[in-house]
């Protein structure tokens, strides 16, 4: 899948989310710290969600990211019920042999879904993940520049 089509899909998806952001009525309330931090949280979730849907389920890392976005959405919906800590680490499939040793441990934590990948898979997924992250940064920089003028 070409990076150019991922770039386009990410851009449209991300902009659509930005458009749906709650519009503030009075000018003064736009700058309240609660408003800004709430908007910031929505935007950060949108970067993950837009990238996950732009890439789709074709890569292991994007499937893991889709799961993460969905569980975060479900978490927020359930937050008013019970304060529950997600124990994602303990829900891992037990006993699977994963190669690579200590040096790959930090990489596994950085790549979505990396904890249970075989070493070969991890390296390939990392390469694609880096390409997509670079695209994401490019698009966000362009958007920020255009909004700043």
């Amino acid at each position, binding site marked *: 899948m070409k990076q150019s089509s991922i770039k*386009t899909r990410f*851009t*449209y998806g991300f*902009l659509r989310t*930005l*458009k749906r*952001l709650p519009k*503030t009525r009075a000018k003064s309330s*736009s*700058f309240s710290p609660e*408003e*800004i*931090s709430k*908007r*910031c949280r929505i*935007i*950060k979730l949108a*970067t993950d969600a837009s990238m996950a849907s732009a890439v789709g389920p074709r890569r292991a890392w994007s499937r893991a990211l889709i799961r993460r976005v969905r569980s975060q959405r479900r978490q927020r919906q359930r937050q008013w019920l019970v304060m529950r800590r997600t124990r994602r680490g303990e829900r891992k499939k037990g006993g699977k042999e994963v190669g690579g040793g200590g*040096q*790959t441990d*930090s*990489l596994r934590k*950085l*790549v979505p879904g990396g904890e249970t990948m075989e*070493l*070969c898979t991890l*390296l*390939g997924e*990392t*390469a694609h*993940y*880096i*390409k997509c*992250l*670079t695209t*994401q*940064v490019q698009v*966000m*920089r*362009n*958007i*920020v520049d*255009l*909004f*700043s003028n």
Partner: protein
Amino acid sequence: MSSRRSRSRQSGGVSRITEDQIGDLVSKLQQLIPELRSRSSDKVSASKVLQETCNYIKNLHREVDDLSDRLSELLASTDTNSAQAAIIRSLLM
């Protein structure tokens, strides 16, 4: 007897292929990281590539966070619709 021998040769062969595969993937990663791309002529150890990969991904994550912060502040004060139209137009060109 012969089946045992061929099995052991097979397992040795599989591990050799996997090592080459891993070396291949590591060098592909090296090409993606700006720090190490210029040094592709020298021998860069696999652990160095992995270390730099982790640093690079952390930097990219940090940049996404910074850009999200800036966006949330900008959206508080800009007319989004006209800016969005300009963005879409420029990206389509």
